[in-house]
């Protein structure tokens, strides 16, 4: 590779060239700051400023009258509203049920799948490829696909059940089955995320330890119990914490499949905030709820960093 030398070494030093060169030198010496500047500006405009706005909105009534934003300071009024809002505890409970269920089931399934894949010599690439698909397709497409699957009359599931003489339920329209139906869709979507992390953890494990165990006469289940799982613990802890945090983001599939219904059977926090924001157009109250959700997530993140450090250290 060849590089042209700086112009100053070649051209006669006219005063203009010197000035340009000084500027060039200055930029070169401070290049570190020029290259980080776009990120900092973006974070100031699209994170710091919106955060301040969010806090401001959560203690105000905000309305848009003839294209002008009208602010009215109301203090902690939204806190009182939230305490009396019957949907808030339901949405919190549903979110908690959803998060706990999907995290536990997905971890368990992904652990089994990745253990089985890591023992295989054939088809590993094929399994990994197939498992990647659910993570990349649009969640709205996932919701649509499962709507077609769950459809009472023409859906795959009920048509398959009809073949063996069972008339299927209404799935997402049944108050008792709506949440399990949503959870099943989430398993389809997110188990592969846990699988990819756990498989990476398994593959980075030194094989000699398993071999040593085998030489010492340990059975396969003993190797799993006393060698593999303890070594996998840090990976599992990270995967579980991360999945928990991400599970709070759930929105698209529920929006499409049930819209939070029937009744409030699948109403989760994200969906309710969107409803308050968009359908009821209560910007201040929606922001207050959003701030509450952000605080819950922050606590989880802090907790996660603590646990993560302990698991690794």
């Amino acid at each position: 590779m060849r590089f042209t030398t700086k112009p100053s070494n070649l051209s006669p030093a006219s005063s203009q060239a010197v000035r340009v060169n000084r500027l060039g030198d200055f930029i070169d010496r401070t290049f570190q700051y020029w290259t980080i500047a776009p990120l900092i500006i973006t974070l100031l405009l699209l994170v710091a400023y919106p955060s301040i706005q969010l806090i401001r909105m959560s203690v105000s009534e905000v309305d848009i009258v003839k294209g002008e934003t009208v602010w009215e300071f109301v203090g902690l009024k939204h806190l009182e509203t939230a305490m009396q809002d019957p949907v808030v505890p339901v949405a919190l409970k549903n979110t908690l049920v959803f998060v706990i269920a999907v995290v536990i089931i997905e971890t368990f399934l992904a652990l089994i799948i990745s253990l089985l894949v890591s023992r295989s010599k054939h088809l590993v690439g094929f399994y990994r490829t197939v498992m990647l698909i659910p993570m990349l397709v649009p969640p709205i497409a996932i919701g649509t696909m499962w709507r077609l699957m769950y459809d009472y009359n023409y859906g795959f599931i009920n048509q398959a059940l009809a073949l063996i003489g069972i008339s299927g339920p209404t799935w997402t329209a049944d108050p008792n089955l709506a949440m399990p139906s949503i959870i099943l869709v989430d398993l389809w979507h997110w188990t592969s995320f846990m699988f990819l992390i756990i498989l990476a953890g398994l593959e980075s494990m030194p094989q000699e330890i398993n071999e040593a165990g085998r030489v010492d006469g340990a059975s396969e289940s003993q190797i799993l119990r006393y060698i593999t799982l303890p070594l996998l613990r840090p990976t599992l802890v990270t995967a579980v914490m991360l999945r928990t945090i991400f599970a709070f983001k759930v929105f698209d599939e529920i929006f499409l499949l049930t819209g939070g219904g029937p009744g409030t059977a699948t109403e989760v926090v994200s969906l309710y905030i969107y409803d308050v924001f968009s359908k009821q157009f209560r910007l201040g109250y929606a922001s207050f709820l959003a701030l509450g959700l952000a605080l819950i997530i922050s606590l989880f993140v802090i907790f996660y960093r603590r646990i993560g450090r302990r698991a690794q250290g």
Partner: protein
Amino acid sequence: MKKFSIEPIFRHGYLMSVVAFTLVPILFTLATSFKYFRDIISGSLTFTPTLVNYQRLFDPSQSNFVRLTFNSLVVAAGTMVIVLVIASLAAYSLSRFRWRPLWSGLLLGTILFIHMLPPVTFLGPFYLIARSLNIYDTVLAVIMGHIILNLPTATWILLDFFAEIPKELEEAAMVDGATHFQSLTRVLLPMIQPGIAAAGALAFIFSWRDFLFSLSLTSTPRGMTIPVGISSFVQEYSIRYGEMAAGAFFAMIPALLLVAFAQRFIIKGLTLGALKG
């Protein structure tokens, strides 16, 4: 000699059932998208394939899907370019220069944190910003949201790639009299091309598949993207299964292409935060 074991049969049998569970909804949707309505109702395994659903979807007189596809492409490409510029410069700066841990930690911590926040927390402020900048219901408003969505992953992927380049290469260029700018554009960026491809592909896909920002920052086909179009299909015309399926399958094509051609680059990006504390 190794004794015969039936364990592999069970193992691959179980894994194949996982594969089937993953593929059945996609294949059922694909099949539905090629069916006449009468075949959708009959539920028989055999059917006469037809392109009528796709034709209706892309007929401008019957649906605005063409316009939404155009918007989706503009939003995804715009987001990808902006995110790549910001993230590659920042990753370069953070990995090739000495920063006080306080500053680099603050920046990387903020990025990781916004990656973990539910996007719904940004809605209110972003709505007001879009209103006051007069970009509500345009692709610009959606791009604004998608930058925040994609900046963390892109920065992290590129940091990894920059970190793998030995310092000596850059120093050699400097000795030859190159400026930092020249060494960045002629030595470092060409070397991290795979990283740029991975970060760019993921930014494109995650912008393409986002629903919430487009849903809340647009109200007409002027700025709407494909996912919002599909969702309105599903809600308004719950009987038009064929078009629903065609729209959903069409929206999945970029993801399927990426899985087919670039998967080894993207696993790292998808598991961001797990492989880094």
